[in-house]
C-alpha cells in the first residue's frame, strides 16, 4: 500500500482549536491521519477530548463503537446519531509534562460513493501511571466523497508542537 504524504501541519505558538485539511486530492483509495497532540488548559485526570468529522458538516450521521481501557479494565460503548466522533484524549498541563497523546485514523474508500467507514487507535498518559487506550470504529452514513477533515479540540486549543499529518493510500 503506497502512501503519499498529502500534508503535515505543526501548530505554532498561538495554538489552534481546530485543524482542517481541505481540498483533499481525490486520487487516493484510503486516507491515513496521524496526530500527536496536547491540550492547553488543565482539566484533571480525564484529559481533554478531540473529535473528528468530515466535510465540515453538522449532519447527525456518525455511529461509533469504542473499545477502551483506562488502567486495567477494558469495556466498550456504542453511540449513534453523532455529528462527529470523539476519538482521542489528550494530556493537559496538569498531567505529565510535555507528553503528547498519539493516535491515527484510517479512512476507507474516502473518495467513493458508499457510507464512510473509519477506525482509529489512540492512547494517552494521564499521569505517569495511568494509560488510556481506545480503539474506535465509526461509520458516517453519508455517501459523499470526503473532501475535508476537521480535527477539533473540544475543550480548548491544541498547543504548540501538536502535529497532524495526512496521507493518501493508493
Amino acid at each position, binding site marked *: 500500500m503506497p502512501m503519499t504524504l498529502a500534508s503535515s501541519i505543526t501548530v505554532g505558538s498561538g495554538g489552534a482549536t481546530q485543524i482542517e485539511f481541505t481540498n483533499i486530492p481525490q486520487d487516493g483509495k484510503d486516507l491515513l491521519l496521524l496526530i500527536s497532540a496536547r491540550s492547553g488548559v488543565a482539566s484533571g485526570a480525564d484529559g481533554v477530548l478531540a473529535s473528528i468529522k468530515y466535510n465540515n458538516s453538522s449532519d447527525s450521521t456518525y455511529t461509533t463503537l469504542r473499545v477502551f481501557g483506562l488502567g486495567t479494565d477494558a469495556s466498550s460503548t456504542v453511540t449513534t446519531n453523532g455529528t*462527529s466522533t470523539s476519538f482521542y484524549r489528550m494530556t493537559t498541563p496538569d498531567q505529565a509534562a510535555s507528553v503528547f497523546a498519539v493516535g491515527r485514523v484510517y479512512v476507507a474508500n474516502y473518495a467513493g460513493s458508499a457510507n464512510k467507514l473509519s477506525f482509529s487507535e489512540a492512547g494517552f498518559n494521564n499521569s505517569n501511571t495511568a494509560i488510556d487506550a481506545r480503539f474506535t470504529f465509526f461509520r458516517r452514513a453519508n455517501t459523499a466523497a470526503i473532501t475535508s477533515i476537521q480535527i477539533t479540540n473540544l475543550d480548548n486549543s491544541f498547543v504548540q508542537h501538536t502535529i497532524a499529518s495526512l496521507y493518501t493510500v493508493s
Partner: protein
Amino acid sequence: MSDTPVKIIVDLSKPEGERETIVPLTPEEIAQLELDAQRAEEELALEQAEQARIAQLKQSAKTKLITGEPLTPEEADTLVL
C-alpha cells in the same frame, strides 16, 4: 474559552508553503463545537459508567469464586468470552 478560537486551514489545492491559513471559527462553528463537546462529555460519562460496572462485576465474580458462591450470568460473562 474567552478568546475567539481559531482553526488552521491546510488547503491541499495550493502549493506547499502557501497552504496554511489561520482564521477564527465562525459563530456557527463555535456553536457546533459546543454541542459536540457536550455530547462528547456525555459519551465519556457513559464510558466511565461502563468501566465502573465491569470493574464491579469482576470484583464480585472474584469474591464469589473465592468463597464458592454461584456467579450471576453477568458476572460469568466477565470471565468467559
